[in-house]
């Protein structure tokens, strides 16, 4: 794949043009990742409404039919279902690791073995998440194993 970066003409906004004979899965993943990068999520907390960039989010977790976005120190409620977030962020660094959790792999500092085929993911902010057995395969695929 050839990548060309050109300076814009004065007044022209940044633009990404994808020229291809056929849109395959890898290109679709790239497009989704670019879109997700620019997408802000409406997040709710006691302080009010915040527009969250995906880069700030460490993981999403579903608790009692509510979905929460966990950032480095803050927690926000997101008014979307977990499966919707999974679809929105497909092809990005976000990965479903259990029935109730989607994590940003770029925020994982360390992986270690947990009980019975599960993995423990230690995040950069010190939090620990468990990767369920049934989702370890998806992680292996993401890492190219």
């Amino acid at each position, binding site marked *: 794949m050839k990548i060309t970066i050109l300076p814009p003409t004065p007044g022209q906004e940044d633009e990404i043009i994808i020229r291809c004979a056929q849109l395959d899965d890898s290109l679709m993943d790239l497009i989704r990742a670019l879109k997700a990068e620019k997408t802000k999520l409406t997040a709710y907390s006691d302080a009010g409404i915040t527009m969250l960039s995906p880069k700030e989010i460490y993981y999403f977790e579903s608790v009692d039919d509510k979905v929460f976005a966990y950032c480095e120190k803050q927690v926000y409620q997101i008014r979307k279902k977990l499966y919707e977030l999974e679809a929105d962020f497909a092809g990005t*660094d976000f990965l479903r690791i259990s029935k109730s959790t989607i994590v940003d*792999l*770029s*925020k*994982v*500092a*360390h*992986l*270690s*073995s947990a*009980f*019975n*085929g*599960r*993995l423990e993911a230690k995040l*950069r902010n010190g939090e620990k998440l468990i990767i*369920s*057995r*049934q989702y370890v395969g998806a*992680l*292996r695929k993401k*890492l*190219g*194993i």
Partner: protein
Amino acid sequence: MTKFRDLIQWFVTITTGIVFLCALTTTLSGEETIPTAMLWQAMLAGGLCSLATVLLFPSEPKSRRHVVVGISLHFLSLCAIMLYCGTRFGWIDWTLSGAAYMIGCVVLVYAFTTGVSYLIESAQARLMDRLLKEKYPGS
């Protein structure tokens, strides 16, 4: 499909442990030959134990209590299976010492399979951790 793969993996590991114990026991008893039936018996016992493992071992425990109860039930089921196979196939006499011997064997095979699983899973985790750090150098 995952359950079936797990069943096969457990069958291989547990049967290896049982065959090893059979070899050790018959060697120590001075026997120079073993009946062919013993090989099939070992595989049958391994198959029953691996089935019990897939069905009873707590794969996604919700709490520490769940882990303790699950493992206890699993261990007791393995003891029951091996005591039945042991008396049915003539490996042990149905006496206190025979039962104690068989439970001791179960403990040894349990330790062996746990050790093997731990080594395999730890190696997998280390590989995945390395690949993750290569993919995301900043983390």
